[in-house]
């Protein structure tokens, strides 16, 4: 019974990895709320949170504590089960995507055991991401529907249609990339972007698929429900959107899930287009240091890239005004999808006749 053989070491290793990644992404999400407020502040010539701890670094803890102690209200007319399921789903799907991101290269321990810094290397990695991200819409949909509030319902309908429209363009822009890589596994895609210069051209996919990257970027803004596409929670027209009726930690889960999504999708964006954990002259560094240290360096490089990506997302949020609903749909269906299709056809033609 080879199938039932369970390696205890393997399970322990994975459990440790999962808890580190989950804890890490929760921590990053926590400090993303702090960073968001700081970024907003410096862009508006303000100081931002600076009372709780040095530079206001304890602010996220204070906010979390506050949310825990708030009264928990479940509206009378709401569908109780779905009302609770909504934020749970949002949180669950937000955490799930981090499983397939390769956070660093494999390294071999002294006893010959190979440790992988990826929770699960699925050969359909990208499809898994798309599936989970689409599930995330259910969190918003259920929350909006179960609240029994017209603003919430309107907002969740907006959000669902937005996600469906932009997923198309996102998928098509990725097809062009996948035709070049020939693999859906994120591990494989990162391995192909090894180093920075392969003798002919830059290895990172963003330099091979600049248009694809732009489309993917715009679509991830829409998928994340972030400004300029934050129609789901448009404060000025829908009050708070789908979290209108939520209070206490259920509201906290929604807000938190948003930031986890931000972190994980930044990580996936970096993995797909900006070379993941690869950096220039990595072979020379790898020759100079021990494999464990090299893995740590790679993880740090990835995290730095991800943090820059998050800061970029925030800078855009505090710069651009929100799109109107019809403008959003027009942009998605009449600009991004045709553009992505053209990009796909051109990539196909180049692969077929130029590169071979």
């Amino acid at each position, binding site marked *: 019974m080879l199938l039932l053989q369970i390696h205890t070491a393997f399970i322990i290793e994975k459990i440790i990895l999962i808890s580190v990644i989950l804890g890490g992404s929760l921590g990053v999400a926590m400090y993303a709320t702090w960073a968001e407020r700081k970024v907003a502040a*410096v*862009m508006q*010539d303000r*100081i931002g949170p600076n009372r709780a701890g040095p530079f206001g670094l304890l602010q996220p803890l204070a906010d979390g504590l506050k949310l825990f102690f708030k009264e928990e209200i479940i509206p009378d007319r709401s569908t109780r089960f779905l009302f609770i399921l909504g934020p749970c789903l949002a949180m669950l799907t937000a955490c799930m995507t981090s499983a397939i991101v390769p956070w660093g290269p494999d390294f071999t321990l002294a006893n010959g055991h190979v440790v992988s810094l990826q929770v699960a290397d699925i050969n359909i990695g990208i499809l898994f991401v798309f599936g989970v991200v689409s599930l995330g819409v259910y969190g918003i949909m259920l929350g909006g529907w179960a609240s029994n509030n017209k603003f919430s319902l309107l907002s969740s309908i907006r959000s669902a249609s937005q996600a469906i429209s932009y997923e198309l363009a996102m998928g098509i822009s990725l097809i062009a990339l996948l035709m070049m890589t020939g693999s859906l596994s994120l591990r494989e895609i990162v391995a192909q972007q090894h180093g920075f210069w392969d003798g002919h051209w830059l290895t990172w996919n963003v330099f091979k698929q600049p248009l694809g990257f*732009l489309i993917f970027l715009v679509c991830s803004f829409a998928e994340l429900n972030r400004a300029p596409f934050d129609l789901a929670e448009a404060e000025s027209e829908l009050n708070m959107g789908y979290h209108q009726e939520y209070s206490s930690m259920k509201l906290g889960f929604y807000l938190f899930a948003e930031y986890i999504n931000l972190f994980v999708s930044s990580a996936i964006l970096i993995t797909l287009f900006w070379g993941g954990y690869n950096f220039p002259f990595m072979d020379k560094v790898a020759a100079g240091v021990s494999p464990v240290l090299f893995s740590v360096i790679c993880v740090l490089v990835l995290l730095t890239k991800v943090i820059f990506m998050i800061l970029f997302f925030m*800078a*855009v949020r505090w*710069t651009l005004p929100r799109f109107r609903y019809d403008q959003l749909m027009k942009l998605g269906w009449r600009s991004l999808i045709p553009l992505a299709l053209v990009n796909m056809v051109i990539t196909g033609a180049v692969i077929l006749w130029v590169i071979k």
Partner: protein
Amino acid sequence: MEKLTNRAVAVDRSPMTFSERLYFPAILKGLSITLGHVFKKKATVSYPEEKRPFSPVFRGLHVLNRDEEGRERCTACGLCALACPAEAITMEAAERLPGEENLYREEKYAAKYEINMLRCIFCGFCEEACPKDAVYLSETVMPANYSREGFIYKKEDLLIPHPQKQEQGNK
């Protein structure tokens, strides 16, 4: 219609050109503006640690003055109460007895002098009306209080400390 200022700019409603419809140049311009603000001077004053200077004409909480020998200047003439548009000042006069010359400068003094800070509008008319230079508006912001009674400032709250007694206290 005559224009009020020459700063009015007509709204351009011509259809967007191709480069405008690409959005990206405008987005980059916007990002450069917001990122430029990162390095600008912050407008925030971190209040308790850092205080903005008051303007020279600032009118804050009242004080009742004493003269060089520490005698109260107020003679309870009631001109400040008369000048007060908010009717915040009340006082009762009393006659100085023999032996109190070191306490009050004139032969009449204010036995009771109250300002209701909730009524006061800090206009400074009392300061202007006072013929004896007795009442002044200082550079202190009125502190908060838990009760309405706390906002009625008595003579003891308003009088500046006795200069000689203060010196003794410091020794």
